[in-house]
């Protein structure tokens, strides 16, 4: 029981943050545990890295990243230090790093960090913001509606089924295997233990135990092998088992995919203002007026939307 939202413009569209918030509010009933957004901004010269950690680890991780960048220039921007909720023990920090060659050292350091710290997202365009609570509160807390320069984005409200409710397990998910990838997902990859162990054998790092992270890493692995997003996603439908509908985004492309029985709902619709939207409930499409050319996909279907 989760809700997916995506806004994929064909040309420049303003207020994407607001549109995604509206779509999620319309679907709040589908999930009230946590919510999250993956925003793709216009291309940046420098890498942005968002790291999550336990409150107690925050200073240590900052020190680590500072040290790795000490001899080079680093422009460290801490845009948020969650959280207002007293139950939540996790915080996140966003770093903007230059020059580019530092990036793999930092990613390796986070991959190998002994303690409760993990990579949320990294890349030249992507930032993922996620937290526990209701969508209205999260929107206010992070000023989502005011964010500028968003080119496209995907979002999610979550009802936790298998893992704990915390910002760490909230969607969207990304991976350290490849920059700028985000996944939101409704359903369950029932063979995720199997897929995960195979990817772990290949040396990929997992930061959590959710099945959605497995999708991100699996797709990243295929993209690393030279697959297009469409081919990777088609192979994923053949490989994965169980009921799932997911939206996978990389720069300039968003894939929309359903399992072979199309067990979970979701529909794509077009708005005359010039964008596609994908939503689990039709209410989400109504919220942003994207009700033309509706496409719910064939069972096992894959559709890739192009954007800028």
């Amino acid at each position, binding site marked *: 029981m989760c809700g997916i939202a995506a806004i994929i413009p064909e040309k420049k569209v303003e207020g994407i943050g607001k549109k995604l918030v509206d779509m999620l509010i319309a679907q709040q009933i589908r999930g009230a545990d946590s919510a999250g957004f993956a925003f793709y901004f216009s291309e940046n010269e420098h890498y942005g890295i968002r790291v999550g950690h336990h409150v107690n680890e925050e200073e240590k991780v900052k020190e680590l990243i500072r040290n790795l960048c000490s001899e080079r220039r680093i422009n460290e921007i801490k845009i948020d230090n969650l959280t207002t909720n007293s139950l939540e023990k996790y915080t996140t920090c966003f770093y903007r790093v230059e020059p580019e060659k530092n990036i793999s050292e930092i990613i390796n350091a986070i991959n190998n960090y002994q303690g409760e710290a993990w990579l949320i997202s990294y890349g030249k365009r992507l930032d993922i913001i996620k937290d526990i609570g209701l969508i209205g509160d999260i929107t206010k807390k992070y000023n989502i509606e005011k964010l500028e320069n968003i080119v496209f984005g995907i979002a999610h409200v979550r009802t936790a089924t298998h893992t704990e409710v915390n910002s760490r397990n909230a969607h969207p998910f990304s991976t350290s295997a490849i920059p700028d990838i985000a996944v939101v997902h409704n359903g*369950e990859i029932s063979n995720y233990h199997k897929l995960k162990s195979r990817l772990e*054998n*290949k*040396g990929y790092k997992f930061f959590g135990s959710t099945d959605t992270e497995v999708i991100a890493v699996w797709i990243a692995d295929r993209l690393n*092998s030279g697959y297009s997003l469409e081919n990777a996603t088609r192979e994923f439908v053949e490989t994965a088992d*169980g*009921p799932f509908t997911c939206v996978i985004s990389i720069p300039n492309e968003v894939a929309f995919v359903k399992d072979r029985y199309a067990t979970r709902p979701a529909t794509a619709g077009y708005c005359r203002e010039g964008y596609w939207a994908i939503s689990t409930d039709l209410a989400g499409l109504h919220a942003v007026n994207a009700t033309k050319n509706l496409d719910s996909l064939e069972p096992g279907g894959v559709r890739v939307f192009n954007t800028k």
Partner: protein
Amino acid sequence: MPSDAQKRVGQMAKDGSAAYRGGATQKYDFWEDISILAAQVGMPPFDSYKEDFDISLKLGGRYSKNILSLNMPIVVAAMSYGAISRTAKLAIHDALNELAIEGIKLALNTGEGGALPEELNEHEYNLIVQYASGRFGVNLDYLKKADAIEIKLGQGAKVGLGGHLLEDKITEDVARQRQIPIGVSAFSPARHMDIIGPEDLDAKVSELREITDWEKPILVKVGASYVKNDAEIITKSGADAMVVDGSEGGTGAAPLVAAEHLGINTVAAIPAARRSLDISIQNLYNAIPKNKGNVELRDVQLIGSGGLWTSDRIVKAMALGADCVGIASGILIAMGCTQCQQCHEGRCVKGIATQDQELEKKLDREEVKMKIKNYIYALRDEIKKLNMAAGFYKIGDMTIENLRTCNVNVSAMTGIKMQGSDVIIGLDRQ
């Protein structure tokens, strides 16, 4: 009442040599203590009455050019001509051929006694020929006509011993087939004369690859004992698949003490083999230089066997890590075997495990063919139902995480979580 051990002493005092028996060991039934988790609300079950289930399997292809395609992850495991009668062999052959024509293609392992001409030349199913220490029936034709080759290092019922075919069952025909003398018990060697260490297995796999132009998948079968080490060696040897045969496996004849006390159980062997194969592959990945880019290594497939007679055991074995299972005694029981454990005497009243012409006539080839087919249909149906209820629409996706047990011993042996508490007994899984 004299105890079993007491009876054995009496027997030993009378005979002066090891007692034999046939059939399968049924000392433990650990499978009964394992349950499969069903899907409910977090993930819904699929409907086995209305929706399709993909039950096919691709076997081989790690280094072989050919990949076997099975419509059900079942190999009819090794039962040699000699151990069982020609009629029994042919009934199985007929059943598998008909199933293959109906679209249910399985695989048949010849066993170590060589292949019958019908099996070699008229098989619609996948034929796996066994390359055992006695080399009975092995020639170029045998290797070339097979779909896959299995190097048999040992079998679960009597790990560490070679094959036994006692003199009563060695008729003229069996002797000709195996190229052995009539009237003398045939004991094949306990080890291959040219495979006495890990490097020799490597060489043997390469040799068979060269002989068959790298076409045929090569399987290596071991009896379950030092499973972890054997799995590592098999991974390094370059075999396509490992066959691990637990001690519940049946046999035509074995020293009683060996059948009862050598080797470990299938339920423990399969997850141990799977973990070790995974780690071995992980080590191979780690050994690849970083600048080589994204290299794809194919997994070593695992075929589990030994006492896997029913659909629940098959599904559980697959969840524990087997890609495919071997069934032998199950097929015999479907044919009417009563597991009287007298196979070694060659006086099987059902006409299965005998070479006596009169007894063999009791086996109606048509009738048992139907029974085998029905058994396979039923297994197929039940495997489908269990998987779909657990939330899967493809075979081979279930893992140990989808099982629970009510037996602390099973949990400690396998790593299956306990029912309710989700605790795994014991810590070190390596």
